[in-house]
């Protein structure tokens, strides 16, 4: 190998190491940790309900992946499931965050691999998410651990950490949409519309019992409709998978992903896939905190309300609040120093808060297209 090639390879490796080790905010993963606890409880609910009726997986057909995989005595297995539920609650509250998250991950993963009959895509995705949360220091914010530390007068722990868990989860998130879209793209029956059309026809009885009018049912069970609709569905999944990676398309991809998940939830039984899919989207926020400033006039009641909104809903800690002189308008200073005020500032603010982003993003995109915002 020539010296130039060696240097190029070393440069590539060094760049890769820098990318993985770059300190970034763990705030998005902390928020995800909070959101995932209730999702774990939803996931565990059927298993826990069975235990309350005296049943566990081995009372009906099950199929271990490997003969060597350890199976626990009934009482210990049941105890573990309930321990996972307790750990999930502790994980969300941030009590012994790391221990709680690792415990939740370990038990949910153990349970998934007990039998091929336990496997579902949404559960696999949950295991991946829990695995990343277990290795990331995501309990230093939005946690009772952090609150107790403050109460004791101890300095807060560093809220940044090497970026690799975040990049890994972003890869997995994109892989879920990419793999799903690609499998449909490569299947002529799917891409040509046969599969979704037949599924709609198979569900015609349910559709007729639902709120859709007759003309809409005629359309969604029409073969020709799926010649185009199938391609639209496949390209939507692939757009989400690719669009999340670039800043220019990320907001649109997140917006489309939310619509995609809500549509799936309304039309199919997918267990926790929709809520998990939407929750994980928070990881696509730029991993830095308090790098935007919101200036408010504390004498103005309307601006005080905006301050209250930010205090309550800025879960990703994107804004720093500063007081402006009396009589000033609401101002937002963006990362690049751009200052905007009034209604555009309000729209931009709402587009950066997790709970309101989906509703505010279309307005923001429209404004940008009309040249209303630099």
């Amino acid at each position, binding site marked *: 190998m020539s010296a130039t090639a060696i240097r190029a390879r070393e440069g590539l490796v060094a760049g890769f*190491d820098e990318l993985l080790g770059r300190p970034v905010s763990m705030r998005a993963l902390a928020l995800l940790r909070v959101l995932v606890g209730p999702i774990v409880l939803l996931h565990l609910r059927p298993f826990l309900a069975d235990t309350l009726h005296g049943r566990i997986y081995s009372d009906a*057909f099950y199929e271990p992946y490997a003969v060597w995989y350890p199976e626990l005595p009934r009482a210990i297995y049941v105890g573990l499931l309930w321990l996972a539920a307790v750990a999930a609650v502790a994980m969300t509250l941030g009590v012994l965050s790391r221990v709680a998250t690792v415990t939740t991950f370990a038990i949910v993963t153990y349970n998934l691999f007990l039998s091929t009959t336990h496997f579902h895509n949404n559960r696999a*995705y949950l295991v991946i998410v829990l695995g990343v949360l277990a290795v990331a220091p995501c309990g230093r914010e939005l946690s009772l651990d952090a609150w107790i530390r403050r109460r004791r007068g101890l300095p807060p722990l560093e809220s940044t950490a090497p970026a690799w868990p975040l*990049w890994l989860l972003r890869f997995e998130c994109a892989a879920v949409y990419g*793999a799903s879209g690609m*499998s449909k793209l*490569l299947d002529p029956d799917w891409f040509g519309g046969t599969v979704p059309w037949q599924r709609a026809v198979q569900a015609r009885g349910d559709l007729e019992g639902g709120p859709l009018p007759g003309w809409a049912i005629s359309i969604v069970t029409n073969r020709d409709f799926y010649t185009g609709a199938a391609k639209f569905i496949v390209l939507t999944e692939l757009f989400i998978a690719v669009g999340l990676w670039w800043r220019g398309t990320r907001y649109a991809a997140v917006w489309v992903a939310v619509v995609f998940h809500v549509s799936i939830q309304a039309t199919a039984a997918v267990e926790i896939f929709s809520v998990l899919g939407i929750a994980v989207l928070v990881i696509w926020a730029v991993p830095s905190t308090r790098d935007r400033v919101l200036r408010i006039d504390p004498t103005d009641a309307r601006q005080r309300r905006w301050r209250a909104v930010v205090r309550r809903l800025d879960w990703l800690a994107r804004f720093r609040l500063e007081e402006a002189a009396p009589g000033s308008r609401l101002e937002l200073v963006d990362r690049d120093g751009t200052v905007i005020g009034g209604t555009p500032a309000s729209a931009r603010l709402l587009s950066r808060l997790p709970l309101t982003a989906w509703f505010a993003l279309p307005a923001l995109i429209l404004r940008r297209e009309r040249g209303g915002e630099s």
Partner: protein
Amino acid sequence: VRVARRVVVLAVVAAQLAFVVRGYSSDHKPFAFQMFPESSMWQADVVRVTADGRRVPVETPWAGYHWNALVGNVGLKYPSVRHHADAGLDNQMAFLRSALDWVADNTPRDHETRYLEATVTSWHNADPPRVQVFRSHVR
């Protein structure tokens, strides 16, 4: 630390890609994220074949056992009714084959059944129907 980090990340990425590729050939497709893959349907006549040659449908409870209670929640209840194969036909047939063996092995009060047999009619998407016969091992 750098090397460990590099190894972990590359291993996870490689494993994920391998699972995605493997999903195109495996029955259960773990971590392949192939969602809503088929519109395929299936229906099966599942019988117990007894030592004296009788073929008794499993819809009839036997020795205190009920087929629907034995097979759990993997889409195998009421097999004589036409069902959608939720995660694809290969996945559903793999479950059915394994379930026949599991039921044969886990019904100790049953002293008359030699084996279970399923005559399956399946429709892969819009393809013509295909008939297959699966048998459990002999008890």
